[in-house]
């Protein structure tokens, strides 16, 4: 039972991202980051986007994501894989891309979970 619980915790990346987003939102209001504070709606949109991704693919474990805010009040979520990074930029619209040192590809949102899953399995 303990083993199963730990296994479940290790792959539950969605909860981790949600916790990171909540912490980011709290800290944006608690401390001046020097950047515009994303709206609550933007944070909710980020959560909903991640939730949709989880429903679209059977995910292996993902590396810990980084959440941050952009210079213009965007919420940024990124995953760093050995073969490249996936970056989501969430504001009025949502942009997603995968990039490495030399090239980038813009992703339509339905492709994001597929790419995430592929990169995670390839790592």
């Amino acid at each position, binding site marked *: 039972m303990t083993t199963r619980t730990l296994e479940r915790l290790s792959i539950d990346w969605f909860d981790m991202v949600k916790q990171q987003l909540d912490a980011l939102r709290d800290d944006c209001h608690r401390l*001046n*980051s020097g950047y515009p504070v994303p709206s609550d709606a933007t944070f909710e949109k980020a959560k909903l986007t991640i939730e949709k991704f989880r429903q679209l693919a059977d995910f292996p474990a993902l590396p810990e994501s980084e959440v941050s805010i*952009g210079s213009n009040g965007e919420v940024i979520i990124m995953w760093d894989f050995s073969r490249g990074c996936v970056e989501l*930029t969430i504001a009025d619209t949502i*942009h997603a891309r995968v990039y490495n*040192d030399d090239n*980038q*590809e*813009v992703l*339509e949102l339905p492709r994001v979970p597929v790419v995430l899953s592929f990169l995670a399995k390839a790592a």
Partner: protein
Amino acid sequence: MSFEELVLPPSESVVRLFARHPSSLGKPIKIRPKDFDRGMGYMSGISMYRAKAKEVARGKWGSEWPKGILIGAAGPIQELGLVFYHTGNDHFSVRCPICDLNRNQTVLPLCKKTVGLCDFDPASALTAAVGQTIPVGIRDRLVKLFSVDTAPY
């Protein structure tokens, strides 16, 4: 107010401030493209300082998040085709050569480029290039030209 182009010796060090979410304290710092976002609220370039003014720069930015300094050389940045515009004391704004330094973005467009994509702006590149593999943008290239300044202060 007019701004003059600033040409720095290729070996001169320049600095860029960055901040991180407090939860990142104690973790290795990776430089990210977002560290080179241009702020669209005030002016439309990437704000940098000559390295000799880095302590002044650190004091001017009111971020209460953990913040640090990225340091790089002027030459490789200029080799990307970017231009420095002197905006006061040792502060300068890094822009495309064609940039009109527009600070009144509600009246005039930010970018004068009419052919192709503005390589400087990730949003415009992203919108126009769905599904295509294209070279990384200016922010991604700047990541490789800077390192985290570990000098004590």
